[in-house]
């Protein structure tokens, strides 16, 4: 199982790298070098979710299987401020 997981992980990364076009060198350098002097933003986010979880346990050669379903309601606030001298981020839900 572990081997399958590692192989899947590595092959996914290689595949993603292969299909991704590269940025022109000048733009890539620009992103690395240019920094905004100061800026901030607030993201208010409301999330409604339905999710599920299927777990198969192996315990002393006995197998057990569980399924969980949940409904989630999550309002969040995200604040970020950057300047040359500081970075502040706050997060709450």
């Amino acid at each position, binding site marked *: *199982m*572990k081997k399958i*997981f*590692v192989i*899947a*992980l590595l092959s*996914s*990364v290689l595949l*993603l790298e292969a299909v*991704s*076009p*590269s*940025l022109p060198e*000048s*733009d*890539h350098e*620009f*992103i*690395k070098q*240019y*920094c*905004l*002097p100061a*800026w*901030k*933003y*607030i*993201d*208010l*986010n*409301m*999330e*409604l*979710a*339905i*999710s*599920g*979880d*299927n*777990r*198969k*346990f*192996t*315990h*002393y050669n006995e197998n057990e299987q569980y399924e969980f379903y*949940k409904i*989630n309601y999550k309002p969040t606030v995200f604040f*970020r401020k*950057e300047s*040359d*001298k*500081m*970075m*502040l*981020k*706050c*997060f*709450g*839900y």
Partner: protein
Amino acid sequence: MQEFRSDLHNEAELKLYNKKSDYIVLSAIMDYNYFNQFYSEENHENSTILGAFLAGSGSGRVREVTPIIRALRFKKRYNSFGKGVLDQQDVANLSGILTKYSENPNNFEYSDKYWWNDISSILNNKLSNLDGYDVFMLTDALKENVGTRLQGKEMNVNLQYFWIKQKNDYWSGNYNLSRINSIFSYIGLTTSGKYYSNLSIKHQIGFEMDLGLYLPTSENTLFDRSINLKLNHNQLFTITDRLIYQVDFNIFGDMYKKNKGFLLEALNSFNYYLENNFSINLNINSHFQKYDQQSVFVDFDRNGYYRVPHFYDGAYREFLWWDFGVFLNYHFGRM
């Protein structure tokens, strides 16, 4: 079994830099978690209050460059018209003003008028060459979804303190079977590093690492000493203007006394924007975990935020699970 769970979570992180990108970091987390698990004849009620404080210092800087990526997309679109060329200085000016794009409607009536006036003046009237159809296409570039884009590298060493107060009640109907109150506290020496790079306007890669040694400072304790390691590799793709795909590969390892455990995760997230502020998100994740008898994880979520340390009592040694989620998100304002 049915469960009702409620969580109130707040955290703040402040980094103060000197000119060489060396910094000190301070962070605080407050968390209140309540759950009530209903079984056929009993229920288990738990409330946990957690406070965590971190102080450290480091070198390097990971900046959020979302406005710069958006400005580069704007430049690419503008240059494709063949009616002029935006240079790097134009992109620099534009990315500064793009940070105000989501705020303008809150501040002005007919905000687009002010917005395009601002853009026109910082681009030295280069918009005047364009006709109406071109401007419609440029407007699209402002609404495209580029995700949260980061760039740079940093490394830091921290001292961290956790304080956790727990109350557990076991009920059979209205009869209280038992009540257990506990207070735990831990101190941790941690080091963490991040590296993010945008290989293209549509593609970002990132690596994160956290390593920590945690020791108890209270009489009650879930563990005597624990060493935790987390490695993360993530990739973000903007597949179309409205579809973002993010994949995370996580490896968690921990060592508690002579017991070792690990957790491998592959997390896939597809985020489709139905309109500019409203998105539907599909997550498909797989996890594989194995450990010896007892194990402690100091957990992180995908944004790198610390969560409550989890203790697994060793009832199971190995398990594999899948989970999925459909999320509807409304963003009141976003970059």
